[in-house]
């Protein structure tokens, strides 16, 4: 589709762009103490964008001369991004970290990041892939280091910028090799060109695939590209930690699925021969080993943490591992499992981080000991925290169980060569029970029983907690509508 025609299908992104501009101008108008009001402009823009995404329907097309795909698959991830951005903006009102800073640009940068994530979810051209990844990365560097006077935040942004620039550079080199092999930048043309390559090209092809995997692995924080995650997650403002652990990960998975399905696949929409172009390497097994390593490392290190925030950072690595279990399959049910897991994970993880933000604001700490006796002092907050912890473990009747169930079902369904992977996944879920329940133990069994009960003072806090807790609980036993929606979103644009 030509550039001008494409604009008429590009409403969600255009609205987001206008939102960013409005937010920047609004930031100039408000005084420093009023700068939180910029958030409402951004929230309004996000609501309009959500409406536009829902309206854009299921028309499949390649916009802007075939660089951006419009399909239900991308729309699903756009909705995920919008939901998480909205929650993170609302959560920022309570953040103790941001007190004393001018926050107008914080909200506009969040909106730019959402725009980048939209592109990540729908890129079908390697130029757009790199562009989208860089938009998201550069904005996350800003946000990780937003607390200019805070040393931890500084350090987080330094580590992030070094790892981020390095891994996207390696990915770019891999993409340049792939461009040389295929002579094109479009996913579908690449697939056709790869199919015609002789065996001589195998080494270069594998090399480029490995380099590209570095870039994707960094975005979804897969082992062994996860080293930045704990430090960045711990040092960043907690609201940003929550955002980084959900939205870029979702978009990273979308991009990874689309790229490997379309460039290295056989052209069938999510068939079983997803890795045909690379059949000289045991590629699916390699990804399966990475998945097993990711969840095991994440879980084993999470056990040793004394800070709840850092524990959640490692646990988010483990969750990326669970989702990666379904990647080597590249089947319809595997991708379905990843999508449903991402949706469930969004609510429970944002919820857990929000409680961390809240406790940080009230008690001033984020270590396990700060949670002692929380169950008696703040019964409501401790109650929802318990729910989020149970859901993150993956126990019924919570949303976490449904997510895990679909992933494991897809892995088992793929055949006996993946049984070991499912086994590792189950063992890891049991390990994760230890450190999630440790939070609950500290809240209810440790510390003094206090008689004074404090409920959340602001209505907004209560509303956010309830809005995150209800899906976490309800999707555990009523999810047919969500399942239908995701099922309809499984349509990936497959070329002109």
């Amino acid at each position, binding site marked *: 589709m030509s550039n001008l025609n494409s604009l008429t299908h590009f409403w969600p992104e255009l609205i987001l762009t206008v939102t960013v501009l409005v937010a920047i101008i609004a930031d100039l108008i408000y005084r420093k103490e009023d700068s939180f009001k910029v958030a409402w402009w951004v929230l309004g823009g996000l609501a309009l964008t959500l409406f536009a995404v829902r309206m854009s329907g299921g028309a499949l097309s390649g916009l802007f001369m075939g660089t951006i795909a419009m399909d239900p698959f991308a729309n699903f991830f756009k909705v995920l991004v919008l939901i998480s951005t909205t929650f993170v903006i609302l959560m920022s009102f309570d953040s103790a970290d941001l007190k004393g800073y001018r926050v107008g640009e914080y909200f506009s940068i969040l909106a730019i990041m959402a725009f980048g994530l939209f592109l990540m979810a729908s890129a079908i051209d390697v130029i757009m892939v790199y562009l989208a990844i860089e938009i998201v990365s550069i904005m996350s560097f*800003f946000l990780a280091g937003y607390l200019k006077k805070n040393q931890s935040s500084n350090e987080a942004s330094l580590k992030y*910028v*070094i790892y981020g620039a390095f891994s996207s550079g390696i990915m770019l080199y891999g993409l340049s090799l792939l461009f040389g092999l295929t002579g094109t930048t479009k996913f579908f043309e690449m697939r056709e060109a790869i199919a015609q390559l002789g065996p001589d090209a195998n080494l270069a092809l594998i090399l480029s695939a490995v380099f590209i995997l570095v870039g994707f692995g960094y975005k979804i924080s897969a082992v062994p590209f996860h080293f930045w995650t704990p430090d960045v997650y711990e040092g960043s403002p907690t609201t940003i930690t929550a955002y980084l652990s959900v939205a870029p990960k979702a978009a990273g998975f979308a991009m990874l699925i689309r790229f490997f399905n379309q460039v290295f696949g056989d052209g069938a929409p999510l068939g079983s021969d997803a890795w045909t172009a690379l059949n000289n390497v045991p590629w699916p097994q390699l990804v399966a080993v990475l998945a097993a390593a990711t969840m095991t490392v994440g879980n084993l290190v999470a056990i040793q943490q004394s800070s709840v925030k850092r524990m959640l950072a490692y646990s988010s690595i483990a969750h990326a591992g669970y989702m990666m279990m379904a990647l080597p399959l590249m089947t319809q049910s595997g991708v379905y499992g990843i999508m449903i897991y991402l949706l469930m994970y969004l609510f429970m993880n944002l919820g857990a981080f929000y409680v961390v933000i809240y406790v940080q604001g009230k008690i001033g700490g984020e270590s396990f000991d700060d949670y002692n006796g929380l169950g008696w002092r703040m019964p409501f907050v401790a109650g929802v925290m318990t729910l989020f912890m149970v859901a993150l473990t993956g126990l019924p009747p919570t949303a976490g169980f449904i997510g895990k169930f679909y992933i494991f079902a897809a892995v088992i369904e793929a055949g006996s060569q993946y049984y070991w992977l499912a086994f590792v996944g189950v063992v890891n879920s049991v390990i994760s029970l230890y450190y999630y329940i440790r939070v609950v133990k500290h809240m209810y069994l440790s510390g003094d029983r206090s008689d004074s009960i404090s409920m959340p003072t602001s209505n907004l806090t209560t509303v956010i907690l309830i809005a995150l807790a209800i899906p976490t609980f309800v999707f555990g036993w009523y999810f047919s509508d969500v399942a239908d929606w995701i099922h309809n979103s499984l349509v990936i644009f497959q070329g002109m």
Partner: protein
Amino acid sequence: MASLSSYLLVGAVLFSLGLYGVVTRRNGVAVLMGVELILNAANVNFLAFARFGGMNMAGHVYALFVIVLAAAEAAVALAIIINIFNNFNTINVDEVSELKQ
């Protein structure tokens, strides 16, 4: 007459030097220079492929995009490093370690 493989060799050497720089340097700015080398290695590849492969303009366009994004990234990274220097009085990436390892 220079051939495609000599350009690719230059690219590969640049890439390796960049990799070496990122891994061994402890000065924040030097690490960034390593990253720039990696990006330029990719650029050399793109342009060489576009020139010798008889391909369309995509390679040139890609290189232009990379240059712009590398500039943006360098700007942000240098701003972060200046801020680090203000708070820590050093830009050695090993000494900047408040957070638990």
